């Protein structure tokens, strides 16, 4: 027997099996993410969740009691901080009800699980898969349950922007950590306590709410447009940025209630950046700092969930909001055509 030939066959077979394993693993990670991304709920559970949002000056902590029931029911009640205690969010797959006890206000919006919003998320997932390297990290357990640990890093950059811990059995996200490109935390959430297989009659949660008003403030489904469609809907020339940070793509456009303000949404799969524009108007703003950039007076402020930049030029007012540093926001503003 020719041993040289045999070695070649063995090495070739090993290479084939190794690459197919890698491919299978890659597929598996994507599938895990897809299942987790899907808006449906595959578990009946009750948990206490702690969420932290980091800004340059402060850390905001929220504690919520959450109940999820298959296939499309969720109940979130705010426990802490005291200022938001008692606020309730119920989503029953048809509508989302938000109740604020201090004002007694009830807001009704389309469900998180509605087909329109689900479709939006599917589009977003495609962008995410295109823009990020998804890798499965070490085996781990959270609150005694085995989890998939998945890390998402922008292609060509090793710093992970997102780490998620997904329950192996139910694909429920048990922990999430989000970072900026410098590796600094932006936000995280985790469950302090969680109990699976807990069933609740849905009616019970509605008892926590005061009786719904006859005509609650209902927000209908929005209409989403492409760039070409939105241009035809408005009576002023639409300005578009020539620059956007890598991996961000245009997702959709909306026309706000006044029919004069256009909202352009860009996403990289993890975050969104929204660019508003309308004929010149004064925008009332507090706690901001003013800056001059290329002869334009701009206002900038840091918010809990992103930074805001406001400026006016060519008879129009622009508002840019997103989790982007100021220099990136200025680059976008400069590139407006």
């Amino acid at each position, binding site marked *: 027997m020719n041993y040289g030939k045999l070695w070649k066959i063995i090495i070739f077979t090993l290479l084939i099996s190794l690459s197919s394993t890698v491919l299978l693993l890659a597929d598996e990670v994507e599938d895990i993410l897809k299942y*987790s*991304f899907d*808006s449906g709920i595959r578990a009946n559970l009750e948990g206490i969740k702690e*969420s932290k*949002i980091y800004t340059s000056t402060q850390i905001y902590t*929220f504690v*919520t009691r*959450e109940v999820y029931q298959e296939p499309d029911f*969720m109940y*979130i009640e*705010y426990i802490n*901080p005291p*200022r*938001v205690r008692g*606020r309730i969010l119920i989503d029953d797959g048809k509508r989302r009800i*938000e109740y*604020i006890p201090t004002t007694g206000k009830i*807001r009704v*919006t389309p469900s*998180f699980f509605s087909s329109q*919003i689900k479709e*939006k*998320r599917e589009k*977003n*997932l495609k962008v995410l898969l295109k823009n990020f390297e998804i890798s499965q990290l070490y085996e781990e357990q959270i609150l005694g349950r085995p989890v998939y640990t998945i890390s998402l890093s922008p292609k060509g950059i090793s710093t992970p922007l997102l780490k*998620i811990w997904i329950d192996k059995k139910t694909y429920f*996200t048990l922990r*999430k950590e989000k970072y900026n490109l410098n590796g600094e935390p932006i*936000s995280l*959430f985790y469950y302090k306590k969680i109990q699976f297989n807990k069933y609740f009659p849905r009616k019970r949660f509605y008892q926590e709410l005061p009786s719904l008003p006859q005509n609650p403030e209902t927000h209908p489904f929005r209409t989403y447009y492409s760039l070409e469609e939105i241009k035809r809907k408005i009576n002023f020339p639409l300005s578009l940025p020539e620059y956007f940070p890598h991996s961000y793509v245009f*997702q959709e456009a*909306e026309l*706000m209630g006044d029919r004069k*303000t256009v*909202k352009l*949404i860009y*996403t990289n799969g*993890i*975050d*969104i950046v*929204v660019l*508003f524009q309308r*004929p*010149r*108007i*004064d*925008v*009332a*703003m507090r706690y901001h700092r003013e800056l001059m950039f290329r002869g334009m007076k701009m206002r900038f*402020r840091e*918010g*809990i*969930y*992103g930074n*805001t930049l*406001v400026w006016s030029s060519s*008879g129009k007012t622009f*508002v840019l*909001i*997103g989790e982007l540093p100021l220099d990136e926001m200025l680059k976008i503003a400069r590139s407006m055509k």
Partner: protein
Amino acid sequence: MECRKIRENLSAYIDKELNFLTRWKIKRHINTCPACKKEWLKLKKIDTISKMILLESPESGFYQRLEKKLPGRKKINSRKYGLSNLTRAWTFTPLAGKAFFVAGVAALIIFLSFIYPRFLSPSLNIDRFEEEYLRSRGEVISWVREPSPIILIQEQRG
């Protein structure tokens, strides 16, 4: 006050055109100075007579005769045509006045349609934009079942 100054102001005093203090000084002077009082009574008589003449109405048919003598003036019977006061005013307004009025209305329309909304319209609050941003964020990013965007906005305001 000297008599000369008093007499200069007597006419204005009769027409009640002077301030309270001057009137009081003149009145006091008239009561003490017979010469000025005589002058005041004379002027007052003239004033009364002139008012009587002006108040007397013209003899009948005066305005008809006057109208006939005015050149190029068309007689419009408002009752016959059922015209309102505004239409009558418009009819009698000279051409330059009409042009001025039309230009004014056009300028107002332009101001309200273009200048006001663009430069002087009421302001919008930034919270409205941030609320819109958070709403889209909640819809797009699925596993971010984080605190409700609306609550966060209010937390930020607090």
